[in-house]
């Protein structure tokens, strides 16, 4: 019996049946969850309208003339790392660009790239995970070895190789990130898939003469989608952090585009001066992370707390 050994989460049993057993209740959000929804909606709105409500363009170096103090005869005042003021509501960054504008433009890149990558990661991970679980020994072990190989490599190193070879355009970043994170999704999906494939109700379906496609569509997928969704919250923030980690090595999104993680990195030199430029994007990331996870917590509480079980 090699199932426990092959099963990376070390769990087995009837996990797949859980959502079927739960009584359907209407979803109720706690106060925290409601706050979370408001924050998420705010940022999603900014993804769509951010560039239009931003006071400046993300790439614009603010004119020094904007900051001349009446009474002081300095015609070229410093424009970098300024505190919040009348011109730049959230201050300026290390190059004298408007932090607020960069934050609003950056919402699109950050949330867009992370969301697309997360969704793609799930699509690839779940598809291959089920294929491994349902497709026989050879397919399973070749996919699993390949997956272990990817998973055992430091993500930043993989990113470095791919970006050095193919450049850091948005499509490359999205493809790279989704492939890297698909490997962890694969692990979970395959574990769930194996559990469900050996369960009694799948046996019953087989006896009834249902095909593999039907079983996957009607038994396997519904059994795993919800539990897997709960791990979405953390995965999403890991992708934002991965992008910021790449920017640490100088491999992030293409300048002058802003993404929140790179904004933290590029303004880090302002930290000893007490500049808020590196803190604002960090707060934005934190607000989104906390919001998403509070909502996820509420959803998983609603589904009997079973959902978080396989999050790794």
């Amino acid at each position, binding site marked *: 019996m090699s199932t426990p050994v092959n099963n990376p989460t070390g769990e087995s049993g009837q996990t797949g049946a859980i959502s079927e057993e739960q009584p359907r209740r209407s979803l109720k959000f706690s106060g925290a969850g409601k706050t979370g929804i408001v924050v998420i909606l705010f940022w999603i709105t900014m993804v769509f309208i951010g560039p239009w409500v931003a006071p400046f363009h993300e*790439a*614009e*170096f603010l004119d*020094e003339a904007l900051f001349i103090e009446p009474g002081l005869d300095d015609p*070229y005042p*410093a*424009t*970098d790392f300024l505190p919040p003021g009348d011109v730049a509501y959230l201050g300026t960054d*290390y*190059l*004298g660009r408007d932090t607020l504008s960069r934050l609003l433009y950056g919402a699109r890149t950050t949330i867009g790239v992370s969301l697309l990558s997360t969704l793609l990661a799930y699509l690839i991970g779940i598809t291959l995970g089920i294929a491994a679980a349902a497709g026989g020994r050879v397919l399973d072990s070749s996919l699993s070895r390949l997956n272990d190989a990817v998973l055992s490599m430091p993500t930043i190193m993989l990113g*470095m190789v791919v*970006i*050095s070879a193919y*450049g*850091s355009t948005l499509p490359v970043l999205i493809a790279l990130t989704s492939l890297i994170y698909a490997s962890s999704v694969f692990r979970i999906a395959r574990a769930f898939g194996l559990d469900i494939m050996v369960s009694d109700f799948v046996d019953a379906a087989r006896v009834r003469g249902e095909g593999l496609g039907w079983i996957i569509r009607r038994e396997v997928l519904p059994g795993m989608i919800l539990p897997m969704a709960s791990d979405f919250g953390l995965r999403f923030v890991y992708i934002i952090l991965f992008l910021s980690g790449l920017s640490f*090595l*100088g*491999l992030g999104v*293409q*300048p*002058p585009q802003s993404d929140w993680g790179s904004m933290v990195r590029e303004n*880090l*030199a*302002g*930290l*000893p*001066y007490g500049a808020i430029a590196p803190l604002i994007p960090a707060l934005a990331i934190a607000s989104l992370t906390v919001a998403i996870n509070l909502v996820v917590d509420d959803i998983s509480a609603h589904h009997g707390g079973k959902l978080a079980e396989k999050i790794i």
Partner: protein
Amino acid sequence: MHGDETTGKDIRALQQKFRDSGISRRDFLAALSALGISAVGARSHLASASALALSPRKGGTAIYANNLHGPDDQLDPIVFTSGIDYTRGRACYNNLTQILDHLTLHPELAEEWSANRDGTEYTFKIRKGVEFHDGSPLTADDVVWSMNRHLGADSPSVIKAYFTSVTEWRKVDKHTVRAKLSTPDRDLPVKLGEKQAKIVKKDTTDFRKGIGTGPYILESFEPGVRSLHTRNPNYWRDGPNFDSLVLTAITDPIARVNALIAGDVHLIASVNSRSVRLIESTEGVHVNSTPSGRYGGICCLKNTPPGESDHFVKGMQYIQDRERIVRSILKGHGQVGNDHPISPAYGADHCTELSQRQYDPDKAKWHLKQAGISSAELFVAPVAAGIVETCLLMQANLKKIGFDLSIRQVPTDGYWGAVWMKEPMNVVSWNMRPTANSMLAIQFAPGAAWNDTYWNNPRFGELLQMQLAETDPARRYEMLCEMQRLVHEGSGMVIPCHINILDGVSDRIHGIPVVPLGAMGAYEWVEFAWMSE
């Protein structure tokens, strides 16, 4: 620089006073600022004043943190390409000649040298009684072997372009060597002071032991981690002051500054211009800001669109807001560039008659219209301080005149092989060379291996050769000036600014020479600096 003369005198008087403990450090700084000297300038005057006050003290362990290191750290001088290698090279080895304060040339292992009348033959007297770290004596054989490694098409030497006119190095007797040249080169002795022209032991095959005649003996060397060096007790001149050296790197720029401030290390290379204020406002550490000729530039290849259009290049040159780049990107630690590499740091070789190209969006717009080009792609890597930011400012300013410059940022590793001299527009960094001629020759000579804009000007090539053969200073300057004008007007090079060398130094370290060729007095601190209690 107005009133340099009097200010200089005042400073010297103040230094004298400070030295005699007549005034406190605080008063000294205040007095200097009253003279209109910036905080950074004041600190370096203070440092040199303290240095005057005391004679070099022997002892102590100096810890130096470079900005880069890795598994490719070298001890083979002919392939030195990074600051950590240069520093280790300075500890382990000697040159024939030495370039010190304000680019003056001094004898090192060559006691004296002479050239024949037309400058095609040089004879060097090698110092006697010099020993390698393993006890064997230095002879002409070692010098000939070391120098011949730079010759020949298949030499991997990174400075072999300096020595293309040298046909051979020959031993005359045990302590005399002679270089034969196919064409005259009046700059040869200066070129021998370069960081790669170190003298190693004949027939060395494994360079990782660092056996040379230098001021410090290599104790241990872990590439990408650190090296330890101890004072060479048999050094051939009065010399090394530290008991030992630790040479390492802290690659994160902010961490490097923090390490200096926290006292973990005594010297750091490549201070980010944004961190200067922080260091200057901290007790016990200061920044040496040395104007240099090095620069980060933008290459527009002349043999391919869009750079082949002279109007296009002019457009790129007029869109550079040079003053603002120096002011807000370099935070004042740089000089405005004039689209040729010979900055005022080259001293008398810098052509003063050339007018300064200014930021002029209207002219830029007109030239770009003439060129009929409205968009371009620029490859950027962080190869020089402020270059990425400069390109971002350029992009924003071009946008205002309706030109779409897209920036492709790529990693630095692999950049030189895959992008530089290949993509039609790319960025480049050039360190300062010891003479204006060598700088101009290496980058702009027709057909030169590193002619990175593929600019081909036969007159310029002629001038290079003529200038090397010329001995009359006035004629030499005239030719240099003409060459600078030709590059300024015709090449595909955009040089918005020259970058100061910014070294972060503990106040306990004194006696670092001022040599604008590289970090920490072009790495000469190793031999001359010392540590106070």
